[in-house]
């Protein structure tokens, strides 16, 4: 019986070829668009989502543009609960052309790498990177993008730190998670600092941020306060926050846009829900006499209602499945084009679940009114709806 009803529902769904095709493509496009928009939103928050709750970021309380004395690191390490301290300095160099943007950080490899276990690099390469003062460690995607191999020399044109800077690729790291940024370029802070000391000693021995490793993520607020208290009323006051909060700080500027995209993604679903509901209402109305006949033959109203639900679900899920399948190549294509804006542009599992959920909701909601109507209509009235 269930199988029979399903078969009938399926045949009903494709009864009007053109209508079925149009509705189906509508759902496909909506689910695809939904998936893409969700992916954009996800990409925006990717940095924050990938952030570890075991890391704090300490920076100048005035602005990121101002650097902090490297000596602060020693004092931060004394704060109870702090397990390690490292630092990173934004470099902002240009590789050949401006449009080849990717993030570059001058770091202290020995302390930095243990703080970022999500950057996966074999031990030999790690050692090679640490040993070579001009060495660089680059993300897999970045290396792919420019065809870099270990041993290649990469030259960046400094903007904040003028001059031509050459590095040797010593390691290509892989991300441990889908959300790990594989577009970073890391090199020795010592190398940078050395050069600065010779040309502009006033700017030497400083860094943009400290990365503070803590043992217990739940103590983050307390430790942050204690760190900032250390430098209260000094020349360079600090602002310490979790890595996540730090990353969200970048997003906050554009949060309104992201929220708008998020709203649009739901509006797309709402629109297709209305379109689909209309299609189902139209189809069910045309079949009033058929449903009445089924009831006359002894089918319970519930069975007739299920028939309509099944038909609607067939359309919703078929469209949804196609939309989901198409999301992957679409995201890959768009991700390739937007690589330097969104280092992480993946279809998250959550997005797929949401797409699936949306397809279900589209199917279910469209079936509600017509199936209740078909269940309720008196048989004699339904039969008169013929001819």
């Amino acid at each position, binding site marked *: 019986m269930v199988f029979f009803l399903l078969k*009938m529902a399926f045949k*009903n769904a494709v009864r009007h070829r053109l209508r079925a095709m149009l509705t189906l493509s509508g759902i496909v496009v909506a689910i695809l668009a939904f998936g893409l928009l969700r992916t954009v939103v996800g990409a925006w928050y990717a940095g924050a989502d990938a952030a570890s709750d075991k890391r704090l970021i300490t920076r100048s309380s005035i602005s990121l543009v101002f650097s902090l004395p490297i000596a602060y690191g020693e004092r931060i390490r004394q704060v109870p609960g702090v397990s390690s301290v490292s630092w990173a300095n934004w470099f902002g160099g240009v590789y050949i052309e401006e449009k080849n943007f990717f993030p570059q950080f001058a770091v202290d490899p020995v302390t930095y790498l243990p703080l970022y276990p999500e950057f996966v690099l074999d031990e030999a390469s790690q050692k090679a990177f640490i040993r070579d003062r001009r060495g660089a460690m680059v993300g897999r995607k970045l290396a792919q993008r420019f065809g870099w191999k270990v041993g290649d020399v990469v030259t960046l044109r400094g903007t904040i730190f003028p001059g031509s800077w050459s590095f040797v690729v010593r390691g290509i790291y892989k991300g441990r998670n889908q959300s790990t940024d594989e577009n970073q370029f890391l090199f020795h802070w010592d190398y940078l600092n050395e050069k600065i000391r010779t040309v502009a000693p006033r700017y030497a021995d400083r860094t943009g941020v400290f990365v503070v490793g803590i043992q217990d993520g739940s103590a983050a607020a307390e430790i942050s306060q204690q760190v900032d208290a250390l430098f209260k009323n000094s020349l360079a006051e600090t602002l310490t926050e979790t890595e996540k909060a730090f990353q969200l700080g970048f997003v906050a500027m554009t949060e309104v846009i992201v929220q708008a995209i998020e709203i649009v993604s739901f509006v797309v679903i709402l629109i297709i829900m209305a379109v689909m509901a209309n299609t189902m209402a139209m189809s069910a109305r045309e079949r009033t*006499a058929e449903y009445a006949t089924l009831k006359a*033959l*002894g089918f319970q*109203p519930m069975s007739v209602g299920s028939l309509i639900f099944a038909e609607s679900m067939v359309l919703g899920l078929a469209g949804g499945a196609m939309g989901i399948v198409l999301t992957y190549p679409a995201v890959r294509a768009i991700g390739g084009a937007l690589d330097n804006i969104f280092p992480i542009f993946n279809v998250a599992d959550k997005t797929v679940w949401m797409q699936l959920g949306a397809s279900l909701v589209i199917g279910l909601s469209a079936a509600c009114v017509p199936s209740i109507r078909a269940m309720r209509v008196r048989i004699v009235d339904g039969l008169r709806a*013929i001819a």
Partner: protein
Amino acid sequence: MSGPAVSLRAVAKTYWRGGQPVPVLTDISFDIQHGDFLALMGPSGSGKSTLLNLIAGIDQPTGGEIRVDDVDIARLSESELADWRARHVGFIFQFYNLMPVLTALENVELPLMLTSLNRRQRREHAQLALEMVGLAERVGHYPNELSGGQQQRVAIARAIVTDPTLIVADEPTGDLDRKSAGEILDLLDRLNGDLGKTIVMVTHDQRAAERAHAIRHLEKGELSALEVAVSRPVTSEREGGG
């Protein structure tokens, strides 16, 4: 099963339209015996279909009692009534009312979905019923690939496949040409004569009505006395009225 197949007592049906009562049937009482073939005639709007629908359990009377095989069907709940119809009533409609997305065989199989038969048994029964109406080679055809007469024969196969107590037909030949109508009436004749099915048929057509055992006229909500059909028996005659 000693009593009548169908027994109506003081049956009344009033529709409400725009707050106004529209009495269609006022006080209908009569019996239909097992094995009867009754034709209901009357002018358009006289309530023939309404009466037939009440007997078939797809509509509820506003008064009186309808017993079919001694079951007071007016007392059954909607869901019980649906089960009851599945077991006891075969329907034949003027416009066949087949499911366009199902083949002839599947259409006939449809009412068997509500029985405990397995798939193979259902197929066999449906096949047999289609053979009985002479459509054995059309099992895989969809309704739109069949003529009106053939569609009505599929509908008849669907009506008999569950072996119901009662077969109701509302103008079964109303949409057919004379020849096809004759074939349908012959079939009904055989269902009644050979299988002993009790049949109630609404018709406008005197010739169709004459194929029945008896005719009742409905006018202004009241039923005429039983008339014995004049031309009975005519089973051997191959072209009936249409």
